[in-house]
């Protein structure tokens, strides 16, 4: 089974402090895709946060 890389999530708050939070998945699966979607959606829900997903190569 293919093990994939991860989503690395830099988060910039309104205070200008940047946080980097990482989501390390288990295997390539729908789990990862949905988990990523969830994090992406978080941007819409978290006022004042700029969240985006960047895959590590």
């Amino acid at each position, binding site marked *: 089974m293919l093990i994939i890389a991860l989503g690395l999530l830099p988060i910039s708050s309104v205070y200008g402090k940047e946080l980097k939070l990482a989501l390390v998945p288990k295997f390539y699966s729908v*789990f990862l895709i949905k988990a990523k979607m969830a994090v992406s959606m978080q941007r819409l829900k978290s006022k004042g946060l700029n969240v985006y997903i960047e895959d590590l190569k």
Partner: protein
Amino acid sequence: MQDQVINQLIDEGVDGIAVAVTQSKYLVENSLKRAKEAGIPIVTYDSDFDASINGDPKNFRLAYIGTDNFELGKSLGEELKKLRPNGGMLIMQSGRPDSPNLNLRLMGVRSALSGKKYDIPPGKLLNNEQGWTEVREPLFNFDQLSQAVKQMESVMKGKPVKADSFIAVGGWAQNDAALYRDMIAPFQGKINDKEVVIIMTDTSPEQLTMLKDNLAHINVGQNPYEMGRQAILTLYKIVTKQKYQEIIYTPVTFCSPQNFNTCEKRAGM
């Protein structure tokens, strides 16, 4: 692989890591040990540390976000009881006999069907308890999808052992949709007539399409969307020194051929 990725993250100065654990012992003795020494908060999601770490998981992570595996197993059993209220002959399928979360699911199924409580996962083989008998030990596929499909085919054929109920505590056999469809097609009549009741775990889009096509009776889904959301939110709370929950159980969903297109939406998907 996870170890490499975590080491890379530490080198990049990450502020927090949420990990769906695969090799518990190896990780805690290597990259996660390094992360702990560097003061980087760790949470687990989907899959927590197992017994191989010889210690309390709390020593290695601040929170766990995922399915309550015992309750998931109970849900699978309860769904079977609805379809076969007078009991029956069951075969279960699991991944590995040394997987703590899967053993909790097996125990949940057995508890639901027998009405008993067990002290140690995976509980005990059912032997005419409330009408339920397991005709053999669970089939372990060791995460080999083709093996999972072959095992299920043997259940559908009734050879070498006949059963009228099948529960998979993971989605393995359906994870290769083409293989599953080829295998199950000759047994469509048995499914339609409920000669064998099929209850599966997980609800990927492919699985729901197969459910729509009446290639199983019930799929009980986990909630990876919520796991991902809560994992990052929890990490965010930890690093910004806010209150957080140490354990968050994400809800399961119940899907059938009748509600396949709406069942996931109810859980906020």
